[in-house]
């Protein structure tokens, strides 16, 4: 993993009062993204608008594609052309991208997709918030693979975690999703963008050996293959079919048994390095509230009330949702009475908590079917029930 200084042209150093959507665009530009292919969809469109306004001053391409199928296909093409690339979308567009998210996993493509979640299913609530695509982020494309998903809780984190998303995507050659939501996407807050020299980003893992020895999917010591770009004389081949080290299709169970474990293990085996958690008053807690994104902010109000009422409550915020912090949940499950999991959906991440807790501690869900954030009292009620 080679870290480099960012190109200062993309970094809008200073304090800004912007929304989460704009902050995602600024994070991408700061990280060196110079190719954005997207399709307008509420509530994410502001990111595309911001990018289209800024990119002519930075040097790069913004293209509004004909649909989300085209957006992600163009992004994968652009990565092979040597660019860092991102897009932004919401539920319906995320659904359309799923097929080529699979291609990106199979071709091992570093790219970033921000999903500003809204209420679903279908067209659902275009202008109102939701956290209902969390399972889709992990399982949405067919086949077995792993991705990385982060969940910012503020415009500032939209900026910070978009840069982090690029770094993770380059480190592990994998699509990374910034799973935010309408509330954070449209919320204006102060965002501090540091000077360019303080931002370090992960360089693509470029191949530097002899041209005729290049194998697109030969694993390096760290388990990640090297990349090249089209036009540099490698005359390489790559495909969405199950393939060997050369990138040639090999359609049999034997090759599949090498490729699929690799796609999964490169993430799972590095989970400890990838996962970012934020914990508060966990030691001695009887209840741990697990949340992510905007819900974690709302939950703190309930947690404060519960503490006043004498309940020992800790909080665990998932900045990284996928890969899931299995180890940490297992540890906690042995020590605490119960988990409380509020999320703006009908039960998604709570299923993972339950799976990891494996009966050692129950997980109480606080559902919300979208359109607004939780009433902190609803969370408080469940905390009290769990503490009984």
């Amino acid at each position: 993993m080679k870290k480099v200084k960012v190109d200062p042209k993309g970094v809008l150093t200073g304090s800004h009062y912007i929304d989460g959507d704009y902050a995602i665009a600024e994070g991408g530009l700061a990280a060196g993204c110079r190719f954005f292919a997207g399709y307008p969809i509420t509530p994410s469109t502001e990111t595309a608008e911001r990018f289209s306004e800024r990119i002519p001053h930075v040097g790069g391409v913004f293209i509004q594609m004909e649909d989300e199928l085209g957006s992600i296909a163009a992004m994968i093409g652009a990565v092979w052309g040597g660019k860092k690339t991102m897009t932004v979308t919401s539920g319906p567009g995320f659904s359309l991208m799923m097929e080529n998210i699979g291609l990106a996993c199979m071709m091992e493509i570093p790219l970033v997709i921000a999903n500003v979640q809204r209420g679903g299913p279908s067209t659902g609530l275009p202008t109102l918030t939701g956290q209902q695509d969390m399972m889709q982020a992990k399982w949405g494309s067919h086949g077995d693979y792993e991705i990385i998903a982060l969940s910012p809780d503020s415009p500032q984190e939209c900026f910070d975690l978009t840069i982090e998303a690029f770094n993770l995507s380059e480190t592990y050659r994998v699509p990374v999703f910034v799973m935010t939501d309408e509330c954070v996407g449209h919320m204006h807050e102060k965002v501090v963008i540091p000077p360019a020299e303080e931002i370090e980003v992960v360089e693509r893992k470029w191949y530097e050996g002899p041209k005729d020895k290049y194998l697109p999917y030969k694993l390096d010591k760290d388990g990640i293959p090297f990349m090249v770009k089209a036009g540099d004389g490698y005359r390489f081949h790559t495909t969405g079919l199950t393939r060997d080290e050369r990138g040639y299709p090999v359609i049999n169970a034997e090759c599949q048994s090498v490729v699929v474990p690799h796609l999964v293990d490169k993430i799972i085996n590095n989970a400890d390095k990838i996962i970012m958690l934020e914990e508060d008053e966990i030691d001695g807690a009887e209840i741990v509230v697990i949340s992510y994104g905007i819900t974690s902010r709302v939950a703190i109000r309930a947690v404060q009330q519960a503490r006043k009422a004498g309940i020992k409550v800790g909080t665990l915020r998932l900045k990284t949702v996928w890969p899931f912090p299995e180890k940490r949940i297992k540890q906690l499950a042995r020590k605490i009475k119960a988990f409380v999991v509020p999320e703006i959906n009908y039960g998604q991440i709570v299923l993972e908590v339950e799976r990891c807790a494996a009966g050692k501690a129950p997980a109480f869900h606080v559902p919300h079917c979208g359109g607004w954030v939780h009433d902190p009292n609803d969370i408080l009620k469940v905390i009290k029930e769990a503490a009984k």
Partner: protein
Amino acid sequence: MAEIRFSGFGGQGIIRCGLITGKALSLYDNKHATMTQSFGPEARGSACSSQLVVSKDRVLYPYITIPEILVSMSQEAYDKYEPDLLENGILIIDTDLVKPKPVREKIQMFAIPSTRFAEELGNRIIANLVMLGFFTAVTKIVSPEAMKKALPGMVPGRFLDLNIKAFDRGYDYGGEVLKTAKPAKTKKKTAAKKKTTKSKK
């Protein structure tokens, strides 16, 4: 801690009011200010609002619950949002555009013909800035210096001077009004914030 709602009809610059005030507070007055707005497919002309939650600590819950300050620049917005105003809150209206019901006992009302003043200054489009000046003077929730610093980038560059003039007009009028009225004060109780230590795992 304060919760503020700016309201009016689409096209009056109501969202701008929230943005300018939020920017002033969080970039130049050392406060935390979270702005949200109601999004919808509504056309220009219908009721719209922007909301600000202001705090000296980090804002957690991003939406307003019981606002203590309501700024209304249209009758429809007033009718829609007035009932939610805190019982001893502050109500600020454009005199010419809002005919208030009998004001609830403990509510303090301040009125300004902001649109008329803007027209006198040459363009009714800057009525929102007249209103912001007035709002700044009577609520004292944000400093006028911070508000003026926040304007570049929030209003078109070539109209910056005009916007500042509009702000001053409203601010001065607010000063005059205050000479005859008690300064605004709300007594909403806020939960004491406990500092928590965060660890990154």
